[in-house]
């Protein structure tokens, strides 16, 4: 049983510890005087003629411009002309368009010239009554706002209108499940902009009417506010609804409701106000008059509301040198940079590099002089570096403002020295420490060229000090560079010293195997020191591998095809000579025949003559065919013709042979006889 209780207790404790707790860190920046001036300049550039903005919606743009300027307490130039122009436009419209009327009445009210339309109060009342009874949500809420504006100017009274029924009408347009408001009964879905308009109108109605029935209706609406807030989109720092207009108007109306209904504070937390404030501060660069108006509406609501008003802590100075380090001064301001009375404590000062280390200083109250809060840190012996200071701000007015815990960074800057620098190289790592392989490098001087053999290792060793104390900078690197290659390698830190060992293989890879001389720079950088770049030496590196090109694409060289050379032939004259030599036996033969003489007396006669001549002619034709083939004909043609020539050749050949055979037999028989 005891064990069970212990287990239960431990679970409860763990749940308690693991529950997310919100620490109000305040807002990271403020809407400064400079921002206001920028906005003022932007609005002035938007003035065209007598009013602001473009032609088709000048009254609306003027409403935005005047609304933003008056909320910032800035003067509106040429206000009288604006008043008369607005009045003219309303008269032209006969006070019938509710949106135009809302914009116009608001402008006149803010420029304090609303009495200019006092003569038209009856016409305005007719329009308002009509819209309060039959208008859609936006028209009704605009009519309610106009009523209150005119009421403040004593141009109408509450008795002129049935505002209680308007409350019921507005609340009836709430979508029960979602808590949002639709424009008309026939609509199926509500919108966040409608909801903002309804919230604001209900807040004003509840405040002015002071009626229990109205309060009940408002409570019904507030009850559903959590589902409306669920539509918000959230990042780590910010929270918003769709866009700037929706966010600002919904935020403004929710906090307006908060002033008449305490339950709103259950749904809108201080954290959410902070997040919305951060979101609004990120929208400083406006590009339209409407955005300018909604930005200021939102920021003003951040500055004054009943839930939580964001605070900011800013340092007067954040960079110090050890010699002038005396006090750290801070100011506590609201979102517009207005000083807020408060008590400030320093929870702790801790090095940025080791935020979880023992604080340099803890739990010390800052002295307050006017609006400035100061703490003396001259005796804390702060070394060079960055320090996180955690402030706890307790506002004097603890009803409007909540406590915040803000962390700011200060920098202690100074100079450094590089001491005990040694450059060594050796074939093996354990020989690098030997004095005979090392060369001392004096801080500020340069080592003469060192030739490092390909199979050797090299090492750079040094310490970095500030005021004779070890200092570990944020950045320590060695730059190796030649006209075509450059690399920077990080230097490792251990046991209060720095060293870098370079191997041929690694350097080759980094430098694309480009052999040659390389300059060496030591680069030391830190936010808190004057950075150092020191050319401390030059080395010669040799790589056996092929150098990698530095150009993006391989530089192709032209390729010319090498044609196969034709076989060598003898000169023409040699060929001709040989031709003559080859022909000479035939010539001698022919000459010999003519010299010796011949007698074709055995040539046959009669039919034998015909057959023999036919045969000789055929054989001659074949010879001519071969010559023809050699000169220009083709094998195909030649063979066909040869086939044709073979017929007479065989025929005449056969007849000739037959003739000679018969003749031979006849002569043989004659001889026998």
């Amino acid at each position, binding site marked *: 049983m005891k064990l069970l209780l212990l287990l239960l207790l431990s679970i409860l404790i763990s749940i308690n510890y693991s529950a997310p707790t919100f620490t109000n860190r305040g807002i990271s920046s403020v809407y400064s005087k400079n921002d206001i001036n920028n906005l003022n300049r932007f609005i002035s550039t938007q003035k065209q003629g007598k009013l602001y903005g473009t032609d088709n919606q000048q009254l609306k743009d003027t409403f935005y411009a005047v609304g933003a300027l008056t909320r910032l307490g800035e003067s509106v130039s040429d206000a009288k002309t604006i008043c008369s122009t607005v009045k003219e436009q309303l008269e032209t419209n006969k006070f019938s368009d509710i949106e135009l009327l809302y914009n116009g009445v608001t402008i006149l009210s803010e420029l304090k010239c609303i009495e200019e339309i006092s003569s038209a109060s009856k016409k305005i009342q007719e329009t308002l009554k009509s819209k309060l009874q039959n208008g859609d949500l936006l028209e009704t809420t605009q009519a309610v706002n106009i009523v209150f504006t005119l009421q403040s100017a004593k141009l109408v009274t509450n008795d002129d209108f049935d505002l209680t029924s308007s409350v019921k009408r507005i609340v009836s347009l709430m979508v029960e499940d979602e808590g949002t408001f639709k424009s008309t009964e026939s609509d199926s879905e509500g919108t966040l902009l409608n909801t903002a308009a309804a919230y604001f109108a209900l807040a004003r109605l509840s405040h002015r009417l002071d009626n229990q029935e109205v309060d009940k209706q408002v409570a019904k609406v507030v009850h559903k506010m959590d589902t409306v807030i669920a539509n918000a989109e959230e990042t780590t720092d910010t929270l918003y609804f769709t866009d700037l207009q929706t966010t600002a108007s919904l935020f403004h109306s929710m906090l307006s409701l908060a002033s008449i209904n305490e339950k709103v504070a259950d749904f809108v937390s201080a954290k959410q106000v902070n997040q919305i404030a951060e979101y609004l501060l990120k929208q400083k660069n406006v590009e339209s008059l409407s955005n300018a108006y909604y930005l200021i509406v939102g920021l003003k609501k951040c500055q004054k509301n009943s839930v939580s008003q964001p605070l900011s802590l800013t340092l007067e100075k954040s960079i110090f040198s050890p010699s002038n380090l005396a006090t750290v001064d801070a100011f506590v301001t609201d979102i517009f940079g207005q000083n807020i009375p408060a008590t400030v404590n320093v929870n702790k000062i801790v090095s940025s590099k080791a935020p979880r280390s023992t604080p340099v200083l803890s739990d010390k109250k800052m002295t307050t002089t006017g609006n400035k809060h100061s703490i003396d840190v001259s005796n804390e012996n702060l070394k060079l570096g960055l320090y996180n200071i955690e402030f706890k701000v307790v506002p004097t007015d603890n009803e409007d403002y909540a406590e915040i815990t803000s962390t700011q960074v200060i920098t202690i800057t100074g100079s450094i020295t590089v001491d005990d620098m040694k450059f060594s190289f050796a074939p093996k790592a354990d020989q690098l420490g030997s004095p005979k392989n090392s060369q001392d490098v004096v801080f500020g001087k340069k080592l003469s060229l060192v030739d490092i053999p390909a199979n050797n290792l090299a090492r750079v060793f040094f310490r970095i000090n500030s005021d004779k104390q070890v200092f570990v900078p944020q950045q320590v690197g060695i730059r190796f560079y030649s006209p075509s290659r450059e690399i*920077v390698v990080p230097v490792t830190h251990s046991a209060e010293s720095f060293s870098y060992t370079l191997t041929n293989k690694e350097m080759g890879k980094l430098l694309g195997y480009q052999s040659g001389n390389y300059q060496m720079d030591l680069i030391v950088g830190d936010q808190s020191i004057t950075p150092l770049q020191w050319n401390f030496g030059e080395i010669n590196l040799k790589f056996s591998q092929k150098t990698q090109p530095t150009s993006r694409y391989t530089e192709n060289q032209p390729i010319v095809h090498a044609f196969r050379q034709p076989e060598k032939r003898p000169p023409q004259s040699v060929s001709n000579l040989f*031709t003559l030599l080859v022909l000479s036996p035939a010539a001698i033969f022919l000459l010999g025949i003519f010299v010796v003489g011949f007698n074709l007396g055995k040539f046959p006669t009669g039919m034998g003559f015909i057959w023999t001549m036919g045969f000789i002619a055929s054989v001659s034709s074949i010879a001519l065919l071969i010559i023809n083939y050699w000169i220009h004909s083709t094998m195909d043609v030649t063979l066909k013709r040869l086939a044709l020539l073979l017929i007479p050749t065989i025929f005449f050949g056969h007849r000739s042979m037959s003739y000679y055979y018969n003749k031979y037999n006849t002569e043989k028989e004659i001889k026998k006889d």
Partner: protein
Amino acid sequence: MMMIKSIFVSFIIASVLLTSVFAEVGGKRTLVVLENLSQKNLYSTFFKTLEKKGYELDFQPATTEVVLEKYGDFNYDHLVLFAPTLESKTITSNAVLNFIDGGNNVLIAGSNKISETIRDIAQECGMDIEEDNTLVYDHFNYDKSQPDHSLLVADQFIQDSPIILQGLDKPVIYKGIGHKIRSNPLNFAVLTGSSTAYSGKKTNGASTKLMGKSCGLVSSLQARNNARVTFSGSIELFTDKSFGTTLEKNQSGNKEFVENLVSWTFQERGILRSSQLELVKISTESNSTVAPDVFTIKDEVSYSLKVEEYDGVKNEWVPYVSQIQLEVIMLDPYIRTFIKGDSKGIYKINIKLPDVYGVFTFEATVQKPGYGQLEHIIRKPIVPFRHDSYERFIPAAFPYYAACFSMIIGTFIFSIIFLFNKDPKHIQI
């Protein structure tokens, strides 16, 4: 009536085909993904510049389910990812890589926190982004008007591809995460840190291993299909605030840098195309008259190609006047030559074909940093000489011919005389 119908249908099909062909370059449909839509105001100048150029911007929050591709057609031509922590159901790394494979362009901006989706995309495109919660610092080159040493004054612009930044020399104010760019001809380190820059932890500035010019700030990928991907480690680079920053009373180069970078990324320049190829035979050593158009070894041919470059500002193709490389390849290049173009972008050369027969590839290429890939390939067979292509009479062989014919004639005469000669003695008998 039927004829009119068929002409009408043909016209529609042709129009659709032409549209799809010319939609490859110069498309303006752009999807802009933001962390939330309210951030649109932060980059209003940048978006207005794009809109002025005719880009149709579709703004979507990172949470919305946007489809990049449907049934093989892409719904957008360009994608702007201004949501460093993007983890979307539809815009996944695979979807974006598929979008890039389709020849579309992507501009990604990061911050010191980057989602796995963005990391995957960058990695596939040759860029290794540093770990979350790191920034690039430079204790030497930072905006001295601010105490923040991560607000760099960066001026290490890409040198070998002037087309990207068009000669910009004004330094840029940069604050963001670093990345390492892989050694690859397709990757472009558009902006890097200086020799003294390094990537350090956001919390205490302690350096990581990435230092010097290896520390990429803005890098791009020019893919082989002409798609371009740019990654900037700083989303702040595109803000109105960044455009208005000054450096020692001079305007920073941020606005020009971004405009030049984005116009290149969105293929407004540096895209090439080729047309009007002419490859004809001028002269031949072959004596054959059979199939005169077929290329024979040792033929002299004329190669002519028109190359044009896309001008996104004028939205038209203009002549590309530079140099192209022509290779005649059969497994290995047999001929490689460089052709200079005339003012009309015509590249013409006469070449003698090799004395090796086979199927050859005539490949014209342009490899110029910052320009798209251009490869014009045509394959042609080169045949050897026919039996009748060679010379008919070889003077060196005349002795053989003479021997042959003298033998024929001699034998013929000798035979006649031998057969029909009547001996005088025999006559006397």
